[in-house]
């Protein structure tokens, strides 16, 4: 452990052997490839950057409208638009690494083979961790279809692990009856960590056209509206498995982040909140440090699962 002046809080956390400067991570799909937010903060001020989902070949994504607002929330149906894993490695990753970011690559695919191929290609790069997106609600193949079937979750985890030289985080879908079932399946498959939650499937309608607002029909709900659901699922998952957990879903303030950690998260991710406040991830990291000081925690890790009285 590094030497610190006595009065500062140790904000570092470790997820599956990877050390993060602080527990605040950007959520996949909301921060592009990291560089888009550099006018607002540098990625070495936060724990890690999770890039937009990467697939083997470039993907166009869904038609527009792709986004709609709901009370304190956002519905999106982007549909995994991305330039493909090879473009990312050549054109985005070097810049992000030069900025000293810890990089989590979010991986998606239409088949188990595609997930494995992307993981294999990325294993040869400077990416620090993989987040396996088996929970995207906005694509027909792969995505949530994989993430809601526990046998599939276990199989895909085990397969991807075989092709990965980096820690594998499985990103769980909240669109299930009992999240502990898929969490245990990922653990059985050999996952190194879990992240949750992805978006909840929802809809809005256009009152003039009498049609769904999103071109895709349904979309994924994120933002403060889903925060209590995310907390509940992190709490249940913490009680069911012993893997590290990255908690996300509606976190908008440092207090939210602290609450998420107390419910059982080892780190947190911030997504939609950055649309309203581009500096949200750094401000939440700073606020979390202040929270720890105020409460007399020498180390932010003391918060994780504190509601269980486990530490």
């Amino acid at each position, binding site marked *: 452990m590094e030497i610190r002046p006595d009065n500062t809080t140790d904000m570092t956390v470790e997820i599956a052997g990877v050390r993060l400067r602080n527990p605040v991570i950007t959520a996949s799909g909301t921060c592009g490839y990291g560089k*888009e937010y550099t006018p607002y903060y540098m990625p070495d001020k936060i724990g890690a950057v999770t890039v937009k989902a990467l697939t083997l070949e470039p993907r166009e994504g869904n038609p527009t409208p792709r986004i709609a607002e*709901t009370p304190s929330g956002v519905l999106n149906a982007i549909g995994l638009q991305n330039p493909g894993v090879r473009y990312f490695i050549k054109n985005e990753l070097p810049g992000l690494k030069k900025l000293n970011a810890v990089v989590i690559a979010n991986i998606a695919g239409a088949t188990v083979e595609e997930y494995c191929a992307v993981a294999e290609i990325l294993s040869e790069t400077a990416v620090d961790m993989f987040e396996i997106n088996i929970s995207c609600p906005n694509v027909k193949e792969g995505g949530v279809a994989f993430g809601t079937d526990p046998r599939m979750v276990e199989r895909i985890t085990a397969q991807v692990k075989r092709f990965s030289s980096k820690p594998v985080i499985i990103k769980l879908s909240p669109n299930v009856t009992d999240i502990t079932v898929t969490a245990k399946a990922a653990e059985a498959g050999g996952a190194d960590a879990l992240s949750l939650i992805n978006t909840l499937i929802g809809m809005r309608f256009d009152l003039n056209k009498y049609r769904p607002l999103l071109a895709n029909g349904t979309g994924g709900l994120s933002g403060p509206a889903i925060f209590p659901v995310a907390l509940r699922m992190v709490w249940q998952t913490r009680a069911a498995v012993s893997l590290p957990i990255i908690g996300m879903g509606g976190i908008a303030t440092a207090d939210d982040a602290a609450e998420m950690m107390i419910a059982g998260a080892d780190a947190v991710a911030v997504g939609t909140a950055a649309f309203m406040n*581009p500096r949200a991830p750094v401000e939440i990291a700073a606020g979390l440090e202040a929270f720890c000081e105020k409460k007399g925690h020498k180390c932010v890790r003391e918060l994780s699962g504190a509601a269980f009285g486990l530490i």
Partner: protein
Amino acid sequence: MTGKIVLNRRIIPDAHFYEMIIYAPAAAKRAMAGQFIMIKCGGDTALRRPISICVADGPTLRICYEVRGKGTAYMTDMPEGGTLDFIGPIGNGFHYKPNRRALLVGGGIGIYPLISIGVKYKKAVSALLGFRSASLIHYIDVFKSYGIPADVITDDGSSGRRGFVTELLRESLQKGEGDMVYTCGPVQMMAAVAAICEQFGVECEVSMEERMGCGVGACTACVCRTLFTEEGVQRETYKRVCIDGPVFDAREIKWK
């Protein structure tokens, strides 16, 4: 970024059009024609609202907005003297082309950003503006105050001349009154304007509209279909309206 709201008032009694002047010297200095800002509206809104910069004048930004839903309704309650929280100026705007004569073609709330490029042309500019009916006509005096004469047409003919702004454009181009067109308004109008310009071989820039998430190029919510040529073959791709646009060369757009 924040600015001080100097003025926030309704423009005409017959519709919910508002104008707002914001004291924000740094943003006003940086602002380029055709750029926009993302406004935090408050309440339980989770997304900022994109609104075009009508014109940057000294240390102030002028914006105009129509009340459409929740966010713009909140904006009408923002007190003069209060603070506006915004991101921007954002995006690729209109390009000024020296030694040309500009025609600004606008419909409805699309008329506002045209002022920002019109002022660059000094006298070599005129505006062709379409409204639904006479009672909705507004801002002609503001165009004039920035040295931009405007011709007006209404969908229902209540202002005298009945028809669409595309007719005015066709006539102007036939008379050779302009060789650079800028347009903003309903998408069908812009598509028609683009087609006429193509026909006359006149360059045209369009300001596109799409629902946005981040406004910084990170979420790919705001994309529009564009055309490009690769090794002699025409292809299509999505581009982001927020930072690749909102203004595009009309020939680049694949109209729906």
